[in-house]
C-alpha cells in the first residue's frame, strides 16, 4: 500500500516546476547585480531582504490558496508548517525546526540543502555578504500578511564555513486583525 503523502510533499507534487539550476543561476545574477550596484555589502544584504519581503507578501497568497493548510493555533505550529509545507512547496526542501526559546516565540530553521547556493563560493571580498538573506525577507513578508510581525535573520551560513544554514525567527507580536473599512464610512 502506498503511504499517504505528507502535506508538504503533496503541495510540491501539485505545483508546476522549473529546473533548480535556472533558479539558482538567476538568483546568482540578482546577487551579482546588487554587488555591482552597491558599494557596501550591508546594503546588498538589505536589498536582498527587501526583495524577499516583496516576494513574501505576494507568495503567501499562493501558499494559502494551494497548500491546503488549516489555520495555525500558535507560533510553534506556524513554524512547523513553514518548514514542512512552505519551504517544501516552493523550494523542494524541508528544514527542521529547532532551538525553541522557552517562551515559544523564537526558533530556528535548520537546513543543509539549499537550492539558492549551488555553485556558490564567497570570495574574500564578500565575507560580509549574507547570501541567503532573501529568505529572511520572504518569511518576514509572508508572516506579516497573516498578522505576525517577526524578526528574521541568518545566524549560521554554510558559505561561511558553518555546518548548517540556520535561520532564526522571532515573533515580535501578533497584530490583531482589522477590517479594511470602518462602519461610519
Amino acid at each position: 500500500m502506498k503511504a499517504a503523502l505528507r502535506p508538504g510533499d503533496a503541495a510540491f507534487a501539485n505545483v508546476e516546476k522549473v529546473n533548480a539550476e535556472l533558479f539558482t543561476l538567476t538568483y546568482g545574477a540578482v546577487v551579482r547585480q546588487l554587488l555591482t550596484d552597491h558599494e557596501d555589502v550591508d546594503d546588498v544584504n538589505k536589498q536582498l531582504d527587501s526583495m524577499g519581503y516583496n516576494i513574501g507578501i505576494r507568495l503567501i497568497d499562493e501558499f494559502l490558496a494551494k497548500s491546503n493548510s488549516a489555520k495555525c493555533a500558535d507560533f510553534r505550529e506556524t513554524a512547523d508548517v513553514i518548514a514542512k509545507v512552505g519551504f517544501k512547496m516552493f523550494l523542494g526542501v524541508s528544514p527542521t525546526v529547532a532551538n525553541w526559546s522557552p517562551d515559544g516565540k523564537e526558533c530556528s530553521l535548520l537546513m543543509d540543502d539549499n537550492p539558492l547556493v549551488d555553485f556558490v563560493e564567497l570570495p574574500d571580498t564578500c565575507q560580509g555578504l549574507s547570501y541567503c538573506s532573501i529568505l529572511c525577507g520572504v518569511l518576514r513578508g509572508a508572516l506579516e500578511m497573516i498578522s505576525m510581525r517577526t524578526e528574521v535573520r541568518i545566524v549560521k551560513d554554510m558559505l561561511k564555513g558553518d555546518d548548517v544554514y540556520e535561520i532564526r525567527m522571532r515573533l515580535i507580536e501578533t497584530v490583531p486583525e482589522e477590517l479594511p473599512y470602518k462602519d461610519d464610512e
Partner: protein
Amino acid sequence: MLGVARGRAHLVNVVDRPLPKGKTEVNLSAFAFLFSELVQYFQTKVNNVNELERKLEEAGYGVGLRVLELLCHREKANRRETRLLGILTFIHSTVWKALFGKQADSLEKATTEEDEYMISEKELLVNRFISVPKDMGQFNCGAYVAGIVKGVLDSAGFPARVTAHFVPIEGQLRPRTTILIKFSPEVMLREQRMG
C-alpha cells in the same frame, strides 16, 4: 570525491565537488517571483525600455557564461561545439532542455540574411506571468533569455548580437517570442573558411 560526508561537502572547494546532475526542481512560482523582483529592481535603475532590456540582457549574459561551462562538462564530456550549426543546435536542444525542461519550439535560418538565425518559443518561460503595460511598447522580458543565449555564444567563440522580439501568430492570443541571433562578420568568415 565519493565518500565525502554530505555535511562536509561545503568545506571542499566548489570545483572539486561532484557536479550536480541538474535534475532537482523548484516551484515555478519561486522562479517567477524572483524574476519579477529582478525586473522591478532594474525598472528603478533605468530611464527607458531599451535600457531595461539591456540590463536584463546583461543579467542573462552572466548566466549564459555559466550555463555553457556547466553543460559542456556535464553533457558533452568537456567538448564544445566549434561549428555554427553545432552551437545553434546545442542551444536549441541541450541548453533549452536544461533550463526550460524542453527543446525550443523551432530553430530557423532567416530567409533574407545569411548571418541571422531565430529560435522561437510559443510561450517563453520568463514571459509566462508577465503582461507588458501598453506604455512600454515592444518591451520583452525575453531579453533575459537573449542575454543567456548571447553569453553561451560569446564564450563559445561565436560573438553575436542577440535580441528578443514578440511575433504575433494567427489564432493565438499571445504572441510568440523569437530570439534573433545575428552573428558577427568574423564568425561567418571563419565558417566559410572551414567549409
